[in-house]
C-alpha cells in the first residue's frame, strides 16, 4: 500500500519521523507531494522502504540514508545523499553542488547534470551521473566509484585517494595528482555493473578511467627546507 504525504502545510520533522518509522508504522511505500524545495527531506532513513518525492527538493535530501530507495522526480539542491551509508537515491533532474558528499555506501544516480564538487570526499558510495559534472568533482575522493556519462569541468579528481572515476566525455582539466589509468576488462565489467544498477544505457567501452597518481600520499623529503 502506498502512503501519500502532502508537504504543502506539512512539517519536515514530522515527515522524517514517519519515514524513519519512529512513530511505529510499518509502511513500505511513500509518495511525498509538494516538496517546495524544502531542506532535509527523507534524511536519516533507516529501513528498506521506497520513497518517491514529486517535485524539486532543497538541501541534503536523502542525507545519511541507510537501506531506503528514494526517488526525486525533480531537481535536488546542495548535498543530495550526503553521507549516504547504503540504499539508493535517484534524482530524475539535476543535482546541485556536493552531490553524494562524504558518502560511505549505496548508489546515487543523477539522471541530469550534477554541478560542482560532485562526490567530494566520497568514502565508498557509487555515483552515476547521466549528464555532466561541475568543477572539482571527486575532490579528495577516498573510495567508491564516480561514473560520468557526459563531461567534467575543471579540477576533476583533485587530491584523489583510491576512488575510481569513469568518464565518457572530456575533462576540462584534471586536478592535482589525478591521472588517466589503464582500462582493463575488469574495470569494464565493474563499470557495466554500475551502469546496469543505475539503469543507465551506455557502453562501457566508451569510458576512460581516472584515479590517483599517489604522489601526494607521503611527505616528500625534498620539501623539508620549506619548514
Amino acid at each position, binding site marked *: 500500500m502506498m502512503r501519500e504525504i502532502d508537504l504543502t502545510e506539512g512539517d519536515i520533522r514530522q515527515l522524517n519521523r514517519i519515514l524513519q518509522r519512529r512513530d511505529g508504522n510499518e509502511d513500505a511505500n511513500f509518495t511525498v507531494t509538494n516538496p*517546495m*524545495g*524544502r*531542506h532535509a527531506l527523507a534524511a536519516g532513513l533507516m529501513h528498506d522502504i521506497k520513497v518517491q518525492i514529486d*517535485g*524539486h527538493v*532543497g*538541501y541534503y535530501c536523502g542525507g545519511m540514508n541507510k537501506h531506503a530507495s528514494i526517488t526525486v522526480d525533480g*531537481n535536488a*539542491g*546542495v548535498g543530495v545523499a550526503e553521507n549516504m551509508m547504503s540504499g539508493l537515491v535517484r534524482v530524475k*533532474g*539535476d543535482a*546541485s*553542488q556536493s552531490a553524494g558528499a562524504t558518502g560511505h555506501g549505496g548508489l546515487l544516480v543523477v539522471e541530469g547534470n550534477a*554541478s*560542482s564538487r560532485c562526490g567530494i570526499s566520497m568514502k565508498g558510495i557509487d555515483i552515476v551521473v547521466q549528464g555532466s559534472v*561541475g*568543477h572539482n568533482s571527486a575532490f579528495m575522493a577516498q573510495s567508491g566509484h564516480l561514473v560520468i556519462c557526459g563531461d567534467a569541468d575543471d579540477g576533476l579528481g583533485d587530491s584523489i585517494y583510491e576512488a575510481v572515476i569513469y568518464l565518457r566525455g572530456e575533462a576540462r582539466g584534471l586536478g592535482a595528482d589525478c591521472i588517466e589509468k589503464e582500462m582493463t576488462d575488469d574495470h569494464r565489467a565493474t563499470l557495466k555493473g554500475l551502469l546496469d544498477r543505475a539503469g543507465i544505457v551506455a557502453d562501457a567501452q566508451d569510458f576512460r578511467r581516472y584515479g590517483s597518481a599517489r604522489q601526494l600520499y607521503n611527505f616528500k623529503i625534498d620539501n623539508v627546507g620549506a619548514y
Partner: protein
Amino acid sequence: MCGIVGLYLKNPDLRSKLGHLFAPMLMEMTDRGPDSAGFAVYRDGAQNAKATVYDADEHFDWDAIASEMTNDLGFAVSVSRSSTHAILSAQSDADTMRRWLVTHHPEVRIMSTGSTLEIYKEIGLPVDVMDRFGVTQMSGSHMIGHTRMATESAVTTEGAHPFNTGADLCLVHNGSLSNHHGLKRWLSHDKGLVFQTENDSEVAAGYLSWRLSEGASLSEALEAALKDLDGFYTFTVGTKDGFAVLRDPVACKPAVMAETDDWVAMSSEFRALARLPGVEKAKVWEPKPATVYSWGHG
C-alpha cells in the same frame, strides 16, 4: 550567509502583481538573513528622475530639502514619504539630483538615484521590513531583494543591500570580496565615485556603474567584473531595463534560476521560487560559475 532573490517580468500584464509575487520570495529567505532586508523596485512614476533618501527619523523634514533643491536647481522637486524613506522626484535627471545632495547635504543617506529605480532597506526581519513599505502592493517591471546575515560590516540600515551608486543600477551580493579596498580607492580617486558605506558590495555596485558610464553593456560590465573583482560572490544586478546574474569561478555561494514565458527569477535556494505561478513547468537550472546570464537590455 545571506539570501538574494530577483524577479524580472517578461509579460507586462503581470506588472501590477510584481510586489505580490516578490514578497513570498524574500520572506522565504528569512533563515538566510534575519538581520536586515532590502529590496529594489523598478517602476515608472509621473516624473523621470527620482532619488530614494533615508533618515532614521520618520518625521525628518524632507520638504525643506526638496524646496532648497527646487530653488537651487530650478526645477520642481516633489516628496513622497514611506516610513523612514522618501522619494524625491523631478522632471530632470537623477545624476544632477545625486550630485546636489552629495554637495549640499552630505548627511543625507541616498539609497538610490535613477529614473525608475527605488531602493528600500531596514534592519529587522524581512516580513517587518516588507510590511513597513507595503511591498505586496507594488507594481513594476522587476524587483531584486536581499536578506542579510552580516559578516563584513555592521548591522545597520546603510549596510543592508541592495546597493546603488547611480544611474538605475542596483546590486545584491551573497559572499564577500577581498580586493574591494584597493578597487574603492581607485574608483574614488581616479574615477570620482562617491561611496557612502564601508560595505564591500557597494564597491561592486560602484564598479559596475562606472563600467556602464564608460559605455559598457551590463553583460560587458559583468564580464569585466570577473577579471577585476576578487572574492566570493553571487550577484544579481538590475538596470532600468535589464536583469543579470553572475557567480564567481569557484561558485561556493548558491544560486538557482527559473524561467517561463512570463518571468525570469533567481534565488539563493529553490524554495524561494516554489510559489511562483507556473514554476512547475519552468526551466529550472543552476547558473554556471563565471558565466553571465542576462535579460532585457543586458
